[in-house]
């Protein structure tokens, strides 16, 4: 048989072979090295431990968001799910007699179940009722943040079982839980049927449907996962604060989406991954941490962080052009 068609093999020019995660990771590294001499305490073990424990809950939530972004959607309700599961879990744990491990287990179960259910509901409304993702998750964000406040009359709920608090308060436990979830998700995205389907649905839902992909269930699963991940984040943070907090995660939404997008996820779907999101989370939390060590106010941090995220995104855009990932203009 003759040589297969075309594509002349000329010497390929130089092009970067690394992805978004490497670039963002490198940016984080450069930032750290540059800032460390000027910010005393940044490189101390204690601070690094702090940084790590701050980063883990965000990582879990952002990984959930990443799945939704890959499917071509967006989940604005993630932080509201955190708040409502936090108070619901706390109420259940206070209600179960004994305050022991049984109560803790019931609390965690309720939180995860509720988060997943709410996420699944979002997905259902989006796929079955054909409502826009933005609207569905925006309204559910409003509803569930309201619900969390209404349930508690804006009061925090104290007196949670010690077994539960140990989950979020213990760095080793947190680390194991997060690594397990994040690692399994990364593996699943690349190796499982569901993972490959998720990317296909994000790229072109019509082509996916015709190829026999159950588009609706895949999208619903992504939202359910995001809800579950938000609830797991809430378990860690609630345990750490030892209180059920009706405004838990109030400032997190932009960090969550920012981290995923920095790591290569796109609002148009089909792109992104766990590694990239992890790098994005690390970058954002590093900036946060260094600025608060400097004694900056919340608002200054927001402004600087916005600028840095933009700069990182610009750099990644440049990388894509070099790598030929964005050679548009195909007719």
């Amino acid at each position: 048989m003759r040589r297969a068609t075309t594509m002349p093999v000329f010497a390929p020019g130089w092009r970067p072979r690394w992805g978004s995660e490497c670039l963002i990771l490198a940016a984080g590294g450069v930032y750290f090295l540059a800032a460390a001499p000027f910010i005393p305490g940044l490189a101390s073990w204690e601070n690094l431990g702090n940084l790590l424990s701050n980063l883990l809950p965000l990582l879990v939530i952002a990984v959930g968001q990443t799945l939704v972004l890959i499917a071509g959607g967006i989940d604005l309700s993630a932080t509201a799910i955190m708040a409502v599961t936090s108070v619901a879990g706390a109420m259940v744990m206070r209600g179960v007699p004994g305050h022991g491990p049984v109560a803790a287990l019931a609390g965690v179960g309720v939180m995860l179940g509720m988060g997943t259910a709410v996420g699944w509901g979002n997905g259902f409304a989006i796929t079955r009722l054909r409502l826009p993702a933005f609207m569905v998750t925006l309204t559910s964000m409003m509803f569930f943040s309201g619900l969390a406040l209404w349930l508690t009359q804006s009061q925090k709920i104290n007196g949670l079982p010690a077994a539960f608090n140990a989950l979020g308060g213990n760095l080793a436990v947190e680390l194991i839980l997060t690594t397990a979830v994040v690692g399994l998700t990364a593996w699943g995205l690349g190796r499982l049927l569901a993972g490959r389907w998720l990317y296909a649905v994000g790229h072109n839902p019509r082509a996916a449907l015709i190829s026999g992909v159950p588009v609706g269930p895949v999208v619903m699963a992504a939202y359910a996962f995001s809800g579950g991940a938000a609830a797991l984040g809430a378990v860690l943070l609630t345990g750490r604060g030892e209180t059920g907090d009706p405004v838990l995660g109030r400032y997190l939404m932009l960090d969550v989406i920012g981290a995923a997008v920095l790591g290569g996820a796109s609002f148009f779907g089909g792109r992104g991954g766990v590694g990239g999101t992890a790098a994005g989370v690390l970058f954002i939390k590093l900036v946060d941490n260094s600025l608060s060590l400097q004694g900056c106010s919340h608002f200054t941090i927001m402004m600087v962080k916005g600028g840095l995220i933009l700069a990182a995104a610009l750099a990644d855009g440049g990388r894509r052009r070099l790598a030929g990932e964005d050679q548009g203009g195909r007719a």
Partner: protein
Amino acid sequence: MIEFQGIEKRFAGVRAVGPVSFDLPPGATLGLVGENGAGKSTLMNLLGGNLQPDAGSMRLAERPYAPHGPAEAMRCGIAFIHQELNLFGNLTIAENLFLTRFPRWWRSPFIYRTGLRAEAGKLLAQVGLELDPHTPMDRLAVGECQLVEIAKALAGDPRLIIFDEPTSSLSTREAERLFALMAGFRRQGRSLIYISHALGDVLRLCDDLVILRDGLVAGRGPARDFTIPRLISLMAGRVPEATAPAPTPPREPAGAVALAVRGVSRPGVVRDISFELRRGEILGIAGMMGAGRSELARILFGLDAPAAGELRLHGRPLQGATVRERVRRGMAFVTEDRRGEGLCLEASVADNLALAALPAFARGRARRIDRPGLQAALTPVKAAVRLTADADGRAVKTLSGGNQQKVVLAKWLLTKPGVIILDEPTRGIDVGAKCEIHELIRALAAAGTAVLLISSELEELTALCDRLLVLNRGEITATLARAEFDQARILAAALPGERSA
């Protein structure tokens, strides 16, 4: 008119075109031919301002010409009718035609709607499309969209019109209409560049020819100096094995009924369609544009629901089965809209190829993908459609149009379908590869697959099919056995207004 001087284009360091030098005299019609991926579309994208060259230059009417975008090319009088449709389904025909130049009330930002309708009507009349300009685009068939594209190109009153495979979605008769239009443009003194894999048409329509091979000019000269075999050998750089579709040897497809269709109707689309498709049979569907061929295919594949009628797959009813269930039960569908429905353009070639067959390679409760197994299965399928083996990691959108079509075909071959519906399967595929795809379709049938073939090319249908249905305005007007295949008879049955027995 236009002159290329050492023009060159690279993608991420890999040269796609060039260096290419040739010129086109004013008022002439240039035919541009070459295999899939030879660089035809890329060269025209340079001319049309969609891409910028990496080296070399162009001259337009004796003046340097370096467009920065399609809008600039338009202003210079160059119109480009792309290989793939670029229309907005959610807008009306008129809005699509005047997207960048709406008629306004004086210079205000308000659109002059009456004027819009009148202007759009005029343009549509020029291409012979009798439709209300305010019809939403997504109601149109692909062939009609093609005509709208041409009307859109005319809106700027261009000096040079580039046609990139305009006939690939048109039936013979509609193509003839297009050729008449082109003749009209020539009389008006416009230059034309015509890209097509239908070499007979190219020889007939063009004054000059340029043959591209692997991005370089492999031959050029007046059209009368060329013959089809010579063109093919220049395109391929070797003497071809087979060129014209050889007819399927007569045989008895006596397999069991694979797909039974009884009384299927859908208002405004198809009416009372009944036929049986047997295992090992190639059943063709002929018809004009808008006769309901693709619509019927969509109903069979479960993308649209029939209002009445019954479908059975291998004797078991298909009622209410989703697309996914159909795929699982061995149905496959190569759609005519490869970009919208056939491919995930941003995803890699390998991911696209694997998509439909993935469940077959998922192992265990967790449905883990058996990657070595998948990889091993991909290799022969890619070879079967002559896709380059090294294409795996590339995004599908960076393949040439014809190679994208091969990806869609290969994707379904991988599922080893029992019933395959092919809607224009060789659209945009070069002559050599087309013959091999015909062989492939025959091999599929010989292995027991039931094939339903929709095509606008009568030669393709008559060469491949065991039986032919002719669809006319949503109804079957003729069922012809192999011995009865006859151009005139098929056309008579396909033409609206006329009825054959």
